[in-house]
């Protein structure tokens, strides 16, 4: 409902209403973008708790700083600048803590925290299950080899379908630099996943 309504409304009017302190307008604005923000955070960080924190922090920053939004870029770009900055901070902290992998040790052996969210319908075939498990771990390993910036560019292009020009704008860099980043990310990942390709 809200997404349909927001399409009809002039987004600029909505933003101006939020700038005047209209909290209901803010809620409508959030609902237009928050699903994709949450999906991005979830896919990048592979943790529901972290995705929740990114969501909260990003939209509160939007609310507190929307008076500085001057319409010199699209709201989508402005929002994603905030979201990607927060996610990059999380990824960098994880690099430092070496907790990039979603695999955690349990008394029953290593378990991928994301396994509960995927592999639907594969229970009937143990061989395929095992391959999926190995593939999943290899993908995690490949992703953990990327720098946070490469990871972000790859995520935004491959999974979120954004254009490299927009990605460059969001990350405060050029389209050319985003292209190089995507190329490096692809090469690194293909090197790790070679046996599956």
């Amino acid at each position, binding site marked *: *409902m*809200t997404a349909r*309504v*927001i399409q*009809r*409304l*002039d987004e600029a*009017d909505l933003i101006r209403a939020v700038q*005047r*302190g*209209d*909290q*209901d307008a*803010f*809620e*409508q604005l*959030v*609902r237009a973008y*928050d*699903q994709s923000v*949450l*999906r991005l955070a*979830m*896919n990048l960080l*592979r943790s*529901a708790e972290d*995705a*929740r924190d990114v*969501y*909260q922090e990003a*939209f*509160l920053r939007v*609310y*507190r700083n929307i008076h500085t939004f001057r319409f010199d870029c699209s709201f989508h770009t402005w929002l994603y600048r905030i979201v990607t900055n927060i996610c990059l901070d999380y990824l960098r902290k994880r690099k430092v803590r070496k907790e990039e992998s979603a695999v955690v040790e349990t008394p029953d052996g290593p378990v991928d925290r*994301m396994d509960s*969210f*995927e592999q639907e319908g594969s229970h009937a075939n143990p061989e395929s299950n095992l391959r999926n498990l190995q*593939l*999943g771990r290899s*993908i995690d390993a490949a992703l953990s080899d990327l720098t946070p910036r490469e990871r972000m560019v790859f995520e935004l*292009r*491959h*999974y979120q379908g954004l*254009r*490299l020009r927009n990605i460059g704008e969001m990350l405060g860099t050029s389209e050319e630099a985003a*292209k190089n980043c*995507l*190329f490096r990310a*692809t*090469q690194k*990942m*293909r090197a790790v*996943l070679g046996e*599956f*390709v």
Partner: protein
Amino acid sequence: MNCEAVIKAIPLYFYGELSPETEERLEDHLHGCASCQREMERQKSFAALLDPRQTQPPVNLLGECRQDLMRSVYREDAPGARHSGPDPWRLFREAFAALLHPGIRFHHVNFAQPLAAVILIGLGYFSARFTAASPGAASVAGLSPDAVISAIRSVQPGSSGQVQIAVDETRRRMISGRLEDSNIQRLLLAAAREESDPGVRVESVDILKTQGGSAEVRSALLEALTTDPNPGVRLKALDGLRNLTADPEVRKTLAQVLLKDANPGVRIQVIDLLIAHKDSSTVGVLQHLVRSEDNNYVRMRCKNALQEMNASVGTF
């Protein structure tokens, strides 16, 4: 273009990020080079491997995030905000409860479910209206692990560094039942009026809207539409009234909302509902709006609606 350049460009070609000229030169090369064609196939296989790895957030996460966010936003100071600034007692209560029970998070269960499915209602502060508070003083150790502090009644310094704090303690309960159950309906009707949490009101009205045949529910939907400060709730109420526009009382209320509601999204939705039944009073309201409406889109929608109803745009 040689093989080395093509191999370097293949990932960008796959993502459609090459210029049309480079793309054309790369395709020319691919037609005549089996080795680069294999490289292209490997790129496609690689991408296909990754696709199933996309994770979706758990079902309730989005709803919980929205509720947490709006709760924080309603506590923020904002110029022109309808709600007043942060309530010091509330902040104190939450800080106090968090201190005692760090695991407690102040959000409700997201319970949007299809019609006739079993409804699970997570009630936080809301449950306080239906459960007896535990009055009187309580030691920290005496607080229940699932308790929520709903009010601090007094704070008194005692002897030897002790402090006495009188709290009202409520307990969170999960109540489940079918939508047809009158007790469940009663709770939902109360939840639809829950002042402190627009998220609870939105979800409640969303569930209730399927029961528009009940006079009590219809009355609650009309009340939400005319009095709820949150446009999300009002839009849900409008959804619930969609099949009731033949009722003159509903149409009269819709016409009033069209003239008074501050939210253009709500006004547009009302127009859509009103034109389902052509009557002279609707035409009059729409003609009035064509003259007085500030929002260009709403005004245009009014004109279109009048045309759809074969009525004149202006009055004579």
